[in-house]
């Protein structure tokens, strides 16, 4: 793993992290979900079925004798501890990790990436053995979802500048006062046009405990130069570098003190 000096915190507000590969569509049908689950069931005994991500086509035929249907879905496979999740669809593969509660320890990327690499290898091996194609990765993604609890460093939703110094107040020049809530969406180029860093800031309520939070979602996506594992891992490392450095760069020194920046 490429060694870089990155900002680090004793108590970061990270609630969830996911890594993902988007790849060229496989000939992945509904029975493959079950067959794949059979291979990972010991580690991920629960499942949920969700609509797929991205655009999708629902294929219907109107001939009785050879009527077929291709129903795009996305399956979640969930571990017993409810802190690890695999998301699989015909052109995406994710692994999510979340804190089961806000007091639980934060899992570092250095521990998460090998897990993702292992699961991806299992997935590719499954695809090879079932002759449904080799996934050609088009985009590597890393996302950190942070929950900034109300009352910890900030009080009012109009006070986003307390957390994010580069964000103004949106106070009108004469007519409008402070907004009741503010949400922000921003995109940054990862040079040399290798990908994008997406930042989303939303006021929200965390449904696990009903607490008000500002959800800060930072997602980096990079296009790999090849399908080789070292290149894919390099892209993940680059994504992580951009997410962590971007997080540090966008947030205030006061918040860094609260998160105990090292």
């Amino acid at each position, binding site marked *: 793993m490429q060694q870089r000096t990155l900002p680090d915190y004793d108590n970061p507000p990270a609630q969830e992290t996911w890594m993902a590969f988007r790849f060229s569509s496989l000939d992945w049908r509904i029975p493959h979900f079950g067959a794949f689950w059979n291979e990972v069931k010991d580690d991920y005994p629960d499942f949920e079925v*969700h609509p797929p991500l991205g655009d999708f086509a629902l294929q219907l035929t109107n001939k009785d004798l050879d009527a077929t249907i291709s129903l795009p879905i996305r399956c979640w496979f969930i571990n017993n501890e409810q802190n690890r*999740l695999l998301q699989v669809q015909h052109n995406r593969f994710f692994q999510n990790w979340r804190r089961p509660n806000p007091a639980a320890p934060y899992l570092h990327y250095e521990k998460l990436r090998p897990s993702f690499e292992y699961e991806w290898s299992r997935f590719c091996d499954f695809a090879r053995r079932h002759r449904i194609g080799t996934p050609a990765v088009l985009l590597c993604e890393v996302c950190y979802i942070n929950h900034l609890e109300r009352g910890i460093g900030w009080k009012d939703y109009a006070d986003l500048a307390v957390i994010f110094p580069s964000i103004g107040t949106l106070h009108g020049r004469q007519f409008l006062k402070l907004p009741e809530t503010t949400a922000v969406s921003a995109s940054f180029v990862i040079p040399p046009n290798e990908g994008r860093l997406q930042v989303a800031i939303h006021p929200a*309520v965390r*449904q*696990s*405990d009903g607490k008000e939070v500002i959800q800060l979602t930072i997602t980096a996506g990079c296009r790999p130069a090849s399908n080789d594992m070292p290149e894919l891992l390099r892209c993940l490392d680059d994504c992580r570098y951009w997410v962590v450095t971007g997080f540090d760069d966008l947030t205030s020194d006061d918040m860094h003190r609260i998160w105990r920046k090292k």
Partner: protein
Amino acid sequence: MAQALRLPNFAGARATRRGELRDSDSTLRQWSPVRGLESPAWMREVYDRLSVLGALPQGWDTYGARPVDPTALATARLFLSHLQVEDLPMPHLSPIPSGGIGFHWRVGERDLEIEIGPGAGIRCLRTQLPQMRMDEDEVDIVKAQEVLAWLLVR
């Protein structure tokens, strides 16, 4: 003959689902459940009001009422975060002298009070006006959703 029905990006469908963050499909990849505070428009104000109630001192009614119990407050926050209330008007919130929190809605001739007690139990009282036909029950979050739907039945 095969027909392809092109469906819009699911993010579009997501935007119509109630109470969820209105974002790109990035939130669809997320596992930790959250609800947006922008819909309905009164949601943020209600959470602010809950904070105010949570800060009331002992004897806030000058008759020795208890402060709002932290468990009741946490339950009220959790309760609101799970309910689909987009079609409802803003509830009236009030502290209860025993240390609980009350939500009150009136829609037309239907009146609903939901009380979250200091032990976090949830009770509701439905009243059909003008007959004053009353129905009282203990509810959980799932049942509470049904009761709220009753408010909007014509």
